[in-house]
């Protein structure tokens, strides 16, 4: 990584403003902060892309590996269907539909801010302090830290499966169902982003326990790949009402497929994903603030 440049040129402390803007309320207006965060994110992500390209063979292999990781997941599902015609009453194209609608939003969230799962490591070894003194939003810096373009592999695989399922699955397309597709993908992505942020916030408290997060991120996307009818009612209830992952695809996709949802929920619930996503993001934001405030450096 010979060409590793400082993350955000001209934003080092000591150049005009000695402290981060967080300590000076009112200096930067909220929209300005968002623009600034996006700019910082872009610069850091671009730097990591450049440094990744120093090892091209490894990049090619890890991208393919990322693609293959989820590809094998789907191969396992296809092997199951080589022995049966339906799983929980769902056919292979229908399961592929659910699979794509789980893998694509998760893949995009993972690509964008998946590196946040490494926050615990930074808390443990004290390198988070470096991010705190830089005059750029900490969330943007942590989200872009070690930005990994190889994660496009997962998105690509999910998109292919979703595309294939759309050619096979029998859907009675109406305006509402058509509209629900992009809404579902965007809301799902936001919900998974909220899970990543909340998981990172948790790591301020328990830095060694970063693996818990995998249960909800990787575990979540795996769960949603299978029909809700397969699982016990209590589990479905938990995923619908407590940790609302069901709004990523189960509820809206059940509506699109015209299948009954195993729980007794009103029909408008299928359209509630954006609201749920907004709620999740707000809660995750609060958790992040609380986590960051409680942060105490290792002090060395």
């Amino acid at each position, binding site marked *: 990584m010979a060409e590793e440049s400082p993350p955000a040129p001209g934003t080092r402390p000591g150049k005009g403003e000695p402290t981060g803007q967080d300590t000076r309320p009112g200096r930067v207006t909220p929209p300005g902060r968002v623009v600034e965060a996006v700019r910082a994110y872009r610069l850091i992500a671009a730097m990591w892309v450049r440094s990744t390209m120093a*090892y091209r*063979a*490894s*990049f*090619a*292999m*890890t991208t*393919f*590996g*990322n693609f*293959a*990781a989820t590809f*094998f*997941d789907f*191969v*396992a599902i296809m*092997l*199951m269907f*080589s*022995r*049966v*015609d*339906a*799983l*929980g009453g769902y056919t292979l194209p229908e399961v592929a539909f659910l699979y794509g609608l789980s893998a694509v939003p998760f893949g995009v969230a993972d690509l964008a801010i998946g590196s946040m799962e490494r926050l615990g490591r930074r808390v443990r070894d004290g390198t988070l302090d470096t991010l705190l003194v830089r005059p750029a939003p900490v969330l943007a810096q942590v989200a872009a830290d070690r930005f990994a373009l190889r994660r496009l592999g997962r998105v690509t695989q999910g998109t292919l499966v979703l595309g294939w399922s759309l050619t096979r699955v029998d859907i009675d397309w109406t305006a509402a169902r058509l509209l629900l597709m992009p809404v579902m993908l965007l809301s799902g992505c936001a919900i998974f982003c909220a899970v990543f942020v909340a998981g990172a916030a948790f790591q301020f408290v*328990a*830095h*060694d*326990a*970063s*693996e*818990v997060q*995998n*249960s909800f991120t990787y*575990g979540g996307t*795996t*769960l949603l790949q*299978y029909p809700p*009818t*397969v*699982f*016990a009612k209590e*589990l479905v209830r938990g995923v619908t009402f407590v940790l609302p992952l069901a709004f990523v695809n189960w509820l809206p996709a059940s509506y699109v497929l015209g299948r009954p949802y195993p729980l007794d929920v009103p029909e408008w619930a299928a359209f509630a994903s954006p609201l749920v996503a907004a709620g999740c993001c707000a809660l995750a934001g609060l958790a992040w603030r609380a986590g960051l405030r409680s942060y105490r450096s290792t002090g060395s």
Partner: protein
Amino acid sequence: MGAGRLYTAVAAGGFRRYATYRAATAAGVFTNTVFGLIFVYTYRALWDERPHLGGYDQAQVVTYVWLAQALLSTLAIGGGGVEEELMERIRTGDVVIDLYRPADLQLWWLAADLGRAFFQLVARGLFPFLFGALCFPVYLPADAGTWVAFLGAVLLAMLVGFGIRYLVALTAFWLLDGMGVAQMAWLLGYFCSGMLLPLNVFPGALGEVVRALPWSSLLQAPADVLLGRGEPLRTYLFQATWAVVLLGAGRLVQSAATRRVVVQGG
């Protein structure tokens, strides 16, 4: 005699080292349990549709799921073994210090990995398995002999698992950044060991092939012994053959690799 003591100490060190991170272990147990739950429900749906698929009944396949979760980190099938550290040492050049030591490189890392594996078996293996056994109707053999035979198969699985991962780690001597190869190996291991689907459910020729590959020694072999579906001695023979082949290949590659090492002064 001295050498035996040395490697025992290294293994004990590996065990203690992983035992230090209690929160991480608890987090791992939690994650294994969540994944176990997901797999249990999907497999039960599959076996509802096709009872006795692959020769398993419902209770046996539930045991299989929890066994898979118990052995996942023990055998480092999806990563997390010593190979990551070894690759990093090769990349940074620290491996030179390992080569200076009056100990064999392969045996040193094998001992460290066995220590790690025993800790993971006890800590991360036992709890999800107990959870599964308490919450679901599972098949458990009644006689102690089967359990002993099962532990023997797990021990051989540890050797085979290390054999594969050591070869993977040595590629770093040529590639420097071996993470790409490591990731591919983990994925292949995940799929071919039967972590996603028991290997005896794989159809046709694909099934024949994956059951003959070394990865089937990792999860499918101990599972067959525990579920009373495999002749222990034949299973042992299969595992031992792969262990010898892989560890032998590891030695050959090691001697080729260490001749390549150039220490950069600094």
